[in-house]
């Protein structure tokens, strides 16, 4: 018993990730509104508030909220344009959707007593699989069989090419795995570590250290929340570029 040996400490770092029905008790059916649903919906509301109601004025000289909305827009727009090129801008709304959802789900998950949808493999896997399937289909539709050139490294010696093709193929199919686990793992790890530090605060002697550690971890987690959203989005852009221009 870990908690007994630690002098009555109770560690429940994973309890915060439990999916519960929002109203009353009962089974979690596919339609049940749960705490995950609530926080995803709050993320959607926050996005709407910022990007729709914040820009209601359509001001030439923006106010503060509109500046933030334009900052997000400009950041993702520039990212898509820089990484995938001009023809990638067609898919900008989709990339923006991903970025905004992940960013707001991450940030809202940092509120005390909240729930992070992005800490769940189920959520991030869906996001990653959507990107993976979308990009693969797009690659075949745009380039046909030429898309397979992505796996045939024409700059390598001929003897090495089959080997490289296998490696490229594996790395291609690992993409959604690492894509999703990176996000979920980062968020889950950060929240669990904060929870572990919080459990140490039960001992009066090390409580101050624990509080300082939680504060530091919280600052890091704010950074991680932004960086992981950014990384997820930029990797989406990179995969999109591979689909649009499979010149390898």
């Amino acid at each position, binding site marked *: *018993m*870990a*908690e007994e040996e630690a002098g009555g400490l*109770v*560690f*429940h770092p*994973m*309890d915060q*990730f*439990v*999916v*519960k*029905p929002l109203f009353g*008790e*009962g*089974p*979690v*059916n*596919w*339609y*049940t509104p*749960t705490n*995950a*649903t609530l926080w*995803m*919906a709050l*993320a*959607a509301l926050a*996005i*709407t508030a910022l*990007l*729709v109601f914040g*820009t209601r004025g*359509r*001001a*030439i000289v*923006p106010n503060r909220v*509109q500046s933030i*909305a*334009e900052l997000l*827009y*400009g950041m993702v727009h520039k990212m898509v344009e820089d990484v995938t090129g001009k023809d990638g801008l067609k898919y*900008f*709304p*989709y990339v*923006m*959707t991903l970025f*905004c*959802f992940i960013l707001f789900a991450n940030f809202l998950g940092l509120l005390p007593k909240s729930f992070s*949808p992005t*800490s*769940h*493999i*189920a*959520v991030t896997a*869906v*996001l990653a699989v*959507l990107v993976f399937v979308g990009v693969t289909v797009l690659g075949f539709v745009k380039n046909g069989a030429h898309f397979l050139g992505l796996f045939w490294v024409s700059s390598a010696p001929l003897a090495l090419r089959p080997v490289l093709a296998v490696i490229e193929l594996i790395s291609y199919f690992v993409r959604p795995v690492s894509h999703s686990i990176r996000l*979920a793992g980062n968020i*889950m790890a950060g929240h669990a570590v904060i929870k572990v530090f919080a459990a140490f605060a039960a001992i009066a002697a090390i409580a101050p250290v624990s509080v300082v550690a939680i504060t530091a971890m919280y600052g890091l987690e704010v950074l991680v929340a932004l960086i992981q959203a950014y990384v997820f989005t930029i990797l989406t852009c990179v995969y999109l570029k591979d689909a649009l221009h499979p010149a390898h």
Partner: protein
Amino acid sequence: MFSLLQQTAPVVVEESETVIITESAEAAGHGADAAHAVAAADAAHGAAGHAASAPGMPQLDFTTFGNQIFWLLVILAVIHWVLSRIALPRIGGVISDRQGAITGDLMAAEEFKQKAKEAEAAYDKALADARAEAGKIVAANKAEIQKELDAAIAHADAEIAARAAESEKRIGEIRASAIEDARNVAREVTAALVENFGGKADQGLVDAAVDQRLKGALQ
């Protein structure tokens, strides 16, 4: 805690899925069967916390996957609809409007700058013209004044000359009368002297002698 999980695992597995999921902090109060079972297994720790972590990692609790995926897809569809229909066109429009306004303002500023340059050139020209005009007027005035001055000087000179001539004449007259007087006095004195010395003054001779003498003195 982990070993407890191991112990209670068979108990939990026997229960329906419902119980696994719904076991939460409140579950003990509701008196669910599993809560009793867990409490019986290890009453010291309280049933709630352990029952909550019954599936180990909540992330690997596959019974909630359908729910999460369904709601995620719904939320994503909503966000995508809001963004692509309302937010992104609006923000894009605002940004391009601003770009247009900035370019328009820059062009207007360029125009104003050009106008200012033209105005400055016109002002410079007017200033130069005014200066030339003023110079001309100054020169004309100067010439006029010079003329008047010359005329006045000439007039004054003439007057001075006239006055000088008059004075000259009067001086000449005075001098002539003085010479005449002196001569008459000299003649009378000479005649008186000659008579007093016992001679008989011949008026003609005396005059001639006096004139002879005076000629050198009066000249």
